[in-house]
């Protein structure tokens, strides 16, 4: 295992700047989306990734082009971490035809073909099968890919996790099960929902390795995930990773947060991954205070561009209504 303390020093300045930029893009994107929701530009559900940036960015820094990623409805952060343009995401939230899913998916269903991003999915635990299917394909085609399967703590008590861990272990599928434990399944604290909250320990039941670490610490996520991804790519054995993290905002925008205290939220904000990484980079003289401010400005401007793009984009034309129900035209349909 790489020394997590040394992780940042071992990375090039360019790599660290890229990581910080991505975290800033996600943070700004999500903050802007909440505002746009309040302005009624966005409707439906909106589950933001604010607070969890280190998990997605630190993990997906190790993704190779042939690898695939699937996740839950809290999907904006991962799509942006993969490099999907913010304007495609924002236009999707605005229900515009220029969105990543042509305005048909919305907040919970971001997809990106060039990144093998197999979607945000709206049913808790519904995406596990897709993830092991991608891992299965990798073995079928022998393309040395791995499959990143993200899910929340609430999904750990769905049957699908247990079925798919069994299948992945039984068939040696290169699947990385990543639990982003933000400690609440909607408004239910884990202790009220999960009999055994040591989530990584569930791996043992399926003959898999399990890992637990701090998802608020970018160094730790990046360092340990680097080793884990290498391990899975080489061994073709699935693993279960439990990362403890926190979301500052509600489960969705309609969440008043009555199930937790302001003090609790504030405690986590002190561990904010963006603050931590930027402080450390400045202390290590990777960047200056001014450079950091410029990065913040750049991220904000990028999101403003995305907002403008979404605003100016057209709604899907009505012929989109029946388009993409099927790929093949079989007549009669």
């Amino acid at each position: 295992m790489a020394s997590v303390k040394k992780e940042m020093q071992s990375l090039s300045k360019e790599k660290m700047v890229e990581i910080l930029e991505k975290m800033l893009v996600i943070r700004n994107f999500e903050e802007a989306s909440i505002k746009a929701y309040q302005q009624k530009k966005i409707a439906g559900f909106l589950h933001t990734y604010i607070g969890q940036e280190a998990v997605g960015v630190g993990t997906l820094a190790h993704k190779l082009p042939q690898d695939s990623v699937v996740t839950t409805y809290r999907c904006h952060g991962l799509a942006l971490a993969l490099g999907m343009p913010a304007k495609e995401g924002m236009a999707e939230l605005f229900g515009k035809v220029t969105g990543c899913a042509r305005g048909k998916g919305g907040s919970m269903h971001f997809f990106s073909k060039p990144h093998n991003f197999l979607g945000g999915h709206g049913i808790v635990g519904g995406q596990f099968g897709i993830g092991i299917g991608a891992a299965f394909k990798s073995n079928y085609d022998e393309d040395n890919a791995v499959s990143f399967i993200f899910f929340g703590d609430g999904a750990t008590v769905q049957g699908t996790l247990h079925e798919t861990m069994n299948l992945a272990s039984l068939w040696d599928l290169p699947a990385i099960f990543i639990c982003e434990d933000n400690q609440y399944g909607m408004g239910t604290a884990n202790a009220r929902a999960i009999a055994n909250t040591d989530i990584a320990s569930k791996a043992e039941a399926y003959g898999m390795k399990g890992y637990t670490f701090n998802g608020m610490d970018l160094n730790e996520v990046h360092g340990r995930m680097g080793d884990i991804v290498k391990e899975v790519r080489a061994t073709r054995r699935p693993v279960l990773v439990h990362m403890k993290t926190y979301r500052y905002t509600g489960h969705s925008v309609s969440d008043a947060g009555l199930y937790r205290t302001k003090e609790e939220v504030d405690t986590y904000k002190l561990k904010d991954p963006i603050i931590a990484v930027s402080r450390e980079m400045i202390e290590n003289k990777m960047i200056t205070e001014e450079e950091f401010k410029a990065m913040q400005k750049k991220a904000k401007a990028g999101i403003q561009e995305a907002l403008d793009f979404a605003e100016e984009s057209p709604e899907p034309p009505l012929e989109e209504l029946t388009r993409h129900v099927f790929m093949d035209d079989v007549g009669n349909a």
Partner: protein
Amino acid sequence: MPMIEMREALNQALKEEMTRDEKVFILGEEVAEFNGAYKVTKGLLDHFGPKRVIDTPISESGFTGLAVGAAMMGLRPVVEFMSFNFSLVAIDQIISNAAKMYYMSGGLYNIPMVMRGPNGAGPRVSSQHSHNMESVYAHFPGLHVMAPSTPADAKGMLKAAIRCNDPVIFLENELAYNLKEEVPEGDYIIPIGKGDIKRQGTDVTIIAWSRMMSLAKTAAEELAKEGLNVELLDPRTLKPLDMPLIAESVKKTNRVVVVEEGHYFSSLGAQVAESIYTDLFDYLDSPIARVCQSENPMPYAANLEAATLPSVEKIIRAAKQVTYRN
């Protein structure tokens, strides 16, 4: 043409399509070493090996989900449900994932995937093993639903289903696997959405699919003895329905009986009748009669089971009703 059983016709379709396209693979419970619970996959493991003919644990949700993911990444899975009753365990994968993926991804990810297996009542298996699932799956946009009644149709239809770039629910029938008929050799396709007239007639159109077509054939022979000339129409694909073929037949006979093994309420047969009423009302000389499974869970007792299911007698009665004969 050789006479072969339905199971053998399906087996030929699988073998030919797996030979044609190495992206096609089959997975399900007992499909490999056991050669299939109903022997549809017999010999495939020996021929193609364990990479492409895969025994799964009893995890319908898990392996159906796996198939969806594999399809998104470019493979062409054929999922066998040992019985479509078990597809209920995987229904979230079928409806929320397989059926919706292409649309909700804005056309980025299509799902070329066939889900096949026996549908409907087996003999004497009571309430949980006797579901007819066509009405459920046909309800959701994004799925095609097919249900062959003959071995020859089964082969051509399954080949079309495997070549389709969208998810297909392919409903077979346990009691029809040993149905034996002439089946053309080699490659042929029966396109999705194309029905077939199984018997030409002039007096009444009986619309039926899957095993109900066998009952309807017997009923038609009986009715012929009484001078009633029945036209038998098998839609073969239940969604999308071959409405042009149905229209042609109804315009000729002006009288319709719809037979289905499923229940009466909220059913595919109700949809067929509704489509006819909407499109062809002026051509009808009598109200459409429907023969369905009665509104109770399937009982085990032989007499109650028989009373629950459609029968030749019930079909004959319905045909007489719509032609005003007693």
